[in-house]
């Protein structure tokens, strides 16, 4: 399956999962909210152009927004993490040949520890940005801290489960093929 086709399927899949499964879960507490959809941006290939990445994130966030009825609310954090992603990748990726041998970020291509840091930072940034926008409209500081912390924890758990369920075979690309 081509990379483009795979990502288009993921695009639709993540939005539907978020809109029709995770958002339908009866709320446990005001702070605890399962958010998984942004994993799409984390899983985009390494080789993607930076400006294209941001535009994809914008469109993706906006599509998500139309299902929840708040255009712009999810687009803001999506663009933010798409902007941060390349910086993080340059720091975390080993500078040797390994960065060419896998097509997209996964525990296999990074190693488990750097990959968890990558996920943790971007998840935290996404939630902080998302809750900040909500916080500006209402709420207090405790709401902000509590919601970011609790939602990040739930999202990390969900991402962990997703990684266990769908082990992506980091496609091996030999140097000769390039």
């Amino acid at each position: 399956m081509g990379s483009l086709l795979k990502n288009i399927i993921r695009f639709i899949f993540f939005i539907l999962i978020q809109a029709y499964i995770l958002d339908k879960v009866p709320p446990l507490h005001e702070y605890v909210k399962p958010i998984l959809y942004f994993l799409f941006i984390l899983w985009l290939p390494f080789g993607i152009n930076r400006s294209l990445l941001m535009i994809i994130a914008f469109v993706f966030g906006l599509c998500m927004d139309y299902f929840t009825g708040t255009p712009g609310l999810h687009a803001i954090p999506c663009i933010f993490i798409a902007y941060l992603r390349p910086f993080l990748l340059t720091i975390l990726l080993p500078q040797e040949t390994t960065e060419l041998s896998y097509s997209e970020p996964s525990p296999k291509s990074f190693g488990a520890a750097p990959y968890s840091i990558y996920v943790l930072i971007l998840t935290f940034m996404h939630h902080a940005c998302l809750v900040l926008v909500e916080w500006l409209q209402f709420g207090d500081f405790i709401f902000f801290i509590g919601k970011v912390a609790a939602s990040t924890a739930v999202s990390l758990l969900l991402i962990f489960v997703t990684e266990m369920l769908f082990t992506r075979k980091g496609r091996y690309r030999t140097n000769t093929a390039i």
Partner: protein
Amino acid sequence: MRNIFLFIRRFFHLLLFLALEGLAIYTLSKYNKTHQAFFASVSNEVTGTISEKYNKIEYYFRLKKTNEQLVNENAGLRRMLSSSFEAPDTAKTTLIDSLAKDTLGVRKFDFLVAKVVNNSVSQENNYITLHRGAKQGVKVDMGVIGPDGIVGKVISVSDNYSRVMSILNRKSRVSAMLKKGLYTGDLEWDGKNPDYLMLSKIPKSAKVQKGDTVLTSNVSEKLSFPAGIMVGRVAEISTDQSSNFYTLRIKSATNFYTLQYVYLTDNLLWEEQKSLEAKTPKD
């Protein structure tokens, strides 16, 4: 000029980032004004169609609850039928004047039934999508009530779907009153629990008790709700020492988890009332 191009090329990604963020913030802030006129017709149709497909599956699991609600409501209405009452003393019937005078008065409210195709309770601002739109006579600002109580108001309409701001929304504010004493206050949601609403601005002179009924008020300013629709019951009374008002926690009558059918209320005299109020001198 060359420097400008060099500058743009150098900071292209940062500028693109800022431009896209700006666009997103703009869409978010302008949502309720320009958005609904501009994009709503297209986006409502698309997300509405998908939601409808999803709802077809979900609906089966709720059939029992929905039936129960509708049967209860029917029983309530049947109880109000004239045939359920013993007729008054018929021996002394007065002749009814057959002049063309409508003794029932002018019809004020019309009701349309609509199917809920998408509903959320877990967001900070919750919205509901209904499968009934402009072609079926839905207009913006219509009130929405469920079998058990009030639900929200229509905020945008496309050809076949309409979007409702549920009262489980931080932006929603509805006027509601206590059945006992007719004290009017503002009904809002604090975002915590979808089962409970907050009623503020009830003066301390009101004698409130746990379990008191709360209804929609007859002076609702922004919405076209009929007066006296069930809102909920008082669950908790908290007094603020510094002010003269109670804040009441209301157990919502509507169960938002199992909402499947709602009624749109159309206030037929709304235009007239609005135009009269607009004419009133401001001072």
